[in-house]
């Protein structure tokens, strides 16, 4: 079974996965943009824990997984570059945490925020690159049929619908890039807020 869900809070995501396990749906895979793949199994009490990390190379990723395995965790799913790393304890019902300090738990949000910032920067650069191909002439992305807006009736509609697919095609790239920039900008700012809030809690302790 597949489910589309977006979480910006690791605790909420953990509770969601625990609830699904209680209903007999066990996490098998997570793909980018929030698609959770579940397999059906025995309904059970599981305590999922989520870390957020990307790795420069395979050796670092293996070292990371080995450390968690040594410490009594099963790495359920996660890829080198995917970010989300899902763990369950080897001994069911064990009351374990993957973080023993609030600072380190909060650092997940910082990693995610940094990644969002990079994506926003990449989207912005791509948009600038696309615009520069037309010398920053925005009208070059719209309708190009000469005298289109002076036409009337059937002539207008014929010319309009003839060119529409080309216009959509021209605009698709920039719109997707702008969408990507906005989404990552929003996620990043939320993650930053959560991080600041959690770190503030640390100082006041």
């Amino acid at each position: 079974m597949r489910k589309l869900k977006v979480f910006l809070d690791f605790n909420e995501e953990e509770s969601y996965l625990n609830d699904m396990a209680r209903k007999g749906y066990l996490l098998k895979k997570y793909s980018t943009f929030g698609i959770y793949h579940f397999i059906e199994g025995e309904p059970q009490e599981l305590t999922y824990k989520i870390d957020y990390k990307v790795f420069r190379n395979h050796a670092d990723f293996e070292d990371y997984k080995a450390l968690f395995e040594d410490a009594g965790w099963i790495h359920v799913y996660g890829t080198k570059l995917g970010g989300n790393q899902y763990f369950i304890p080897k001994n069911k019902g064990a009351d374990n945490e993957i973080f023993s300090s609030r600072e380190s738990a909060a650092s997940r949000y910082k990693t995610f925020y940094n990644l969002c910032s990079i994506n926003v920067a990449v989207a912005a650069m791509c948009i600038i690159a696309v615009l520069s191909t037309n010398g920053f002439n925005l009208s070059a992305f719209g309708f190009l049929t000469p005298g289109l807006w002076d036409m009337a009736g059937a002539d207008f509609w014929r010319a309009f619908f003839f060119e529409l697919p080309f216009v959509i095609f021209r605009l698709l790239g920039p719109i997707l890039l702008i969408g990507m920039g906005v989404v990552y900008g929003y996620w990043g700012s939320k993650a930053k807020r959560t991080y600041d809030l959690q770190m503030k809690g640390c100082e006041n302790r």
Partner: protein
Amino acid sequence: MNLSKYLPMTETTYYILMALCEPGHGYAVMQKVEEMSEGRVRIAAGTMYGALENLGKQKLIAPVKSEDARRKMYQTTSEGRTVLQMEAQRLEHLLRVYKKMEEKE
């Protein structure tokens, strides 16, 4: 390099640097710290990994050759040793001041 910026140290960092005066991998450090602190300080896996990453970036520990293909080994560097010593002196001073006050009362 100005090493005093690493002071004061968290208890976790202090224990990790001590544990890594002999080369070891992440889980070995977790066990050693628990043993040294008589079970009082237990570092969780995610926190441990992040701490090793940070200490590596600060050059207070460095990777050493590992016999295990999967697990990386680290050791406290000479800078790490110096910082550890500075922290111990700082703590010693605090303790001395406290004892003096206690004697007066």
